[in-house]
């Protein structure tokens, strides 16, 4: 048997290799300052392994990228952790490279014979940054999409070749799309991922060579086992940090691991886009330059900084070169940290920005609810949002209705007109809302007809008459109040609001008496089922889906206000039938909500 192993070893050369490792000596003593080569190789192995398994789930396409990440994040057992470890190990690797470069500058360890190792470390940093930037798009969520759109647009700043580079990066479409994803994916995995691995290995090799050159003739300390022990502990620290970051949002809930926002919408707007932490300094710097000089903060300054680091081994040969390198690095560090903190502080006190982020987090939760309940159609998760009254209702209302109507919902959900001049729409067709028409003070107030052409109309006249008739007679007032409560209940029941289903069921008698009162009080002007009044809006099915869709589509239809219609336009000319449906469903509080846990 031992003969077999000997023969195998002769072919593989394993014991030679192990022997060389054990014989390898580090200059001076084993030290925590010499762990970086090992940590970098370890980090790229983590990247490669987690990346390989992510690859098995990821699908780069405009209708499948977000969806496959959603699947990983929510359906695949432990998929969220896989994503998180891949994500954070890249970020921690970049942070480690930064620390390593800082240490190298302070100790002047870039000097001969370590120039190439230093450059390889800078290369690892650049490639890891590239992998982080391209990976950002692959989630295909709003922040990744918008950030990439912003970043790629900066290529236009490069004179001459800018637009061609942009087309090559994004695939040449007017928006980022399928081709951007396939290109970024190939770049991310093949060029940047592969390049980071190659450079980390090259760095380890070059460091080893330099160790050998430096320990020639001197003793040094054997790499095995002291340095090996310190280095593997450093790798353990690395992975502990990565897991601590991965688990910091808990192990359950919608935001565990790495945040996955709402699906990218090329036609939508996203107000909260910000770059990753390592680019925030440049982002803030770019604010300090006019557009004609944008190329300076985006390309020239970062390029000059990289050149400065690359030239350090040479600068160090000047009389005060080492001090120049150290002062330059510390100065840069102070500026970048300062700009970054300033930028984060600005955003923290920027209320619209915080609101935009809160809205995005809410949307991310919403799309997950819809995907879980309904499944994602082949047209992608964006369809779920575009077809959701809860999401689209407020947007359509804000765009098309809120120039006149208020929607005074509580808890920051209100959509208010600059100057409300038409009825309040929050709580539309509920009993409370309907009963507002039956009191002089409310119907003539701003929440009903106060600011409309109907301020002095027949309805207001009728309401005044009812109360005048009741006069000061407390009994009559009580009776009228009771009757109008019944009318409100009956009219509101016509709407068949989902939120009132149970009350409507319960109050059958009240509603029946209300129906009788409507037949007695309202049908001179209003049509109601069999009663054929005219001139005022039909109350049959008042506030129902069909009724509400109808009045939004054309309020001047004879069934509604006819010729007496005030300013409200016919939205069938402005919105699609589906958009009117979404608005209708939202106003009626008709949308999917997951059962409470």
């Amino acid at each position, binding site marked *: 048997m031992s003969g077999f192993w000997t023969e195998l070893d002769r072919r593989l050369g394993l014991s030679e290799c192990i022997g060389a490792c054990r014989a390898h000596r580090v200059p001076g003593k084993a030290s925590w300052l010499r762990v970086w080569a090992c940590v970098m190789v370890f980090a790229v192995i983590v990247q490669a392994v987690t990346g390989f398994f992510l690859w098995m789930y990821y699908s780069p396409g405009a209708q499948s990228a977000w969806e496959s990440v959603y699947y990983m994040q929510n359906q695949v057992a432990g998929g969220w952790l896989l994503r998180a470890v891949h994500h954070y190990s890249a970020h921690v690797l970049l942070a480690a490279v930064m620390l390593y470069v800082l240490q190298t500058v302070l100790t002047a360890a870039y000097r001969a014979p370590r120039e190439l190792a230093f450059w390889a470390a800078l290369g690892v940093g650049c490639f890891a940054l590239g992998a982080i930037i391209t990976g950002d798009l692959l989630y295909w969520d709003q922040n990744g999409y918008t950030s990439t759109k912003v970043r790629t647009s900066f290529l236009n700043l490069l004179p001459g070749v800018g637009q061609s580079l942009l087309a*090559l990066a994004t695939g040449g479409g007017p928006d980022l799309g*399928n081709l951007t994803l396939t290109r970024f994916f190939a770049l991310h995995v093949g060029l940047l991922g592969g390049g980071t691995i190659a450079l980390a290995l090259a760095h380890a090799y070059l460091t080893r060579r330099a160790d050998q050159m430096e320990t020639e003739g001197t003793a040094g300390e054997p790499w095995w086992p002291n340095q090996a022990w310190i280095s593997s502990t450093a790798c353990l620290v690395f992975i502990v940090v990565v897991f601590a970051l991965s688990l910091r949002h808990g192990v359950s809930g919608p935001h565990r691991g790495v945040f996955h926002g709402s699906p990218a919408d090329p036609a939508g*707007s996203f*107000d909260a886009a910000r770059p990753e932490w390592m680019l925030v300094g440049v982002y803030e710097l770019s604010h300090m330059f006019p557009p004609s000089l*944008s190329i300076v903060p985006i390309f020239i300054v970062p390029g000059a900084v990289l050149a400065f680091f690359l030239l350090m081994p040479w600068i160090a040969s000047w009389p005060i070169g080492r001090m120049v390198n150290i002062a330059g690095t510390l100065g840069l560090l102070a500026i970048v940290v300062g700009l970054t903190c300033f930028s984060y502080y600005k955003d923290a006190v920027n209320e619209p920005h915080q609101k935009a982020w809160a809205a995005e987090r809410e949307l991310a939760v919403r799309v997950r609810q819809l995907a879980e309940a309904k499944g994602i159609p082949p047209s992608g998760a964006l369809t779920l949002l575009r077809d959701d009254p809860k999401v689209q209702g407020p947007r359509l209302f804000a765009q098309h209705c809120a120039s006149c109507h208020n929607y005074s919902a509580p808890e920051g959900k209100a959509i208010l007109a600059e100057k409300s001049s038409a009825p309040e729409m929050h709580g539309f067709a509920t009993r409370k809302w309907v009963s507002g028409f039956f009191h002089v003070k409310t119907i003539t107030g701003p929440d009903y007809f106060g600011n409309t052409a109907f301020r002095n109309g027949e309805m207001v006249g009728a309401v005044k008459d009812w109360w005048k008739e009741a006069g000061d007679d407390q009994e009559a007032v009580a009776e009228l109040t009771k009757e109008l409560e019944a009318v409100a209940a009956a009219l509101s029941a016509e709407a068949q609001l989902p939120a009132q289903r149970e009350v409507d069921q319960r109050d059958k008698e009240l509603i029946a008496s209300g129906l009788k009162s409507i037949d007695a009080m309202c049908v001179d002007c209003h049509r109601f089922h069999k009663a054929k009044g005219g001139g005022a809006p039909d109350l049959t099915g008042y506030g129902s889906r069909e009724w509400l869709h109808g009045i939004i589509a054309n309020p001047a239809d004879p069934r509604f206000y006819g010729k007496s219609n005030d300013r409200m336009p016919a939205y069938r000319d402005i919105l699609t039938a589906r958009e009117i449906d979404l608005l209708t469903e939202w106003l009626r509080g008709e949308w999917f909500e997951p059962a409470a846990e």
Partner: protein
Amino acid sequence: MSETPGGPAAPCCQQRRGFLEKAAAIGAGALALVAPLGVGVNAFLHPLRKAGGGDGDLLKITSLESLPEDGTPRKFNVTADRVDAWNRFTNEPVGAVFLRRIPGQPGKVAAFQVTCPHAGCAINYEPTDQGGRFFCPCHTAAFDLEGRRTDAVSPSPRDMDDLEVEVRNEHEIWVRFQHFVLNKSEKIAKA
């Protein structure tokens, strides 16, 4: 070592033959490598060969009645067909425009792309005490209601991109919807 005729030639020729062999080895290897690389790079460069300069289509956006009389801008989604490489979408939201009546010119409407000419974020309208402004949340570019930059040092290289508007039948608003190259001081229509 045997000396045969036609064997090792004079040193000068031997050297030349050695050089030729090396050159041939490198040349053949390089050629073999260039061919597949060229095929790949050629396909990679495809986006550069696409026809440029899209004119955009005139699209019906809304009706005149839906715009406030006082010239307050309103945002409207634009729906059109969209092609993304191998996918064709019919009647999809493709972007949005701001529309506003031009004060003092009844029946006249101005249209702007909501996309910021700087880096492509979506510009918002904000009411202010001075009658409102356009504002981009990404890099804080601000514009007045005519779309002109108002910051002393604006991040945006040009004013907001206005779009061609046609009012048909006295109330239908049609807009030529186009995207423009970002981050350039000139307004260049995208393909």
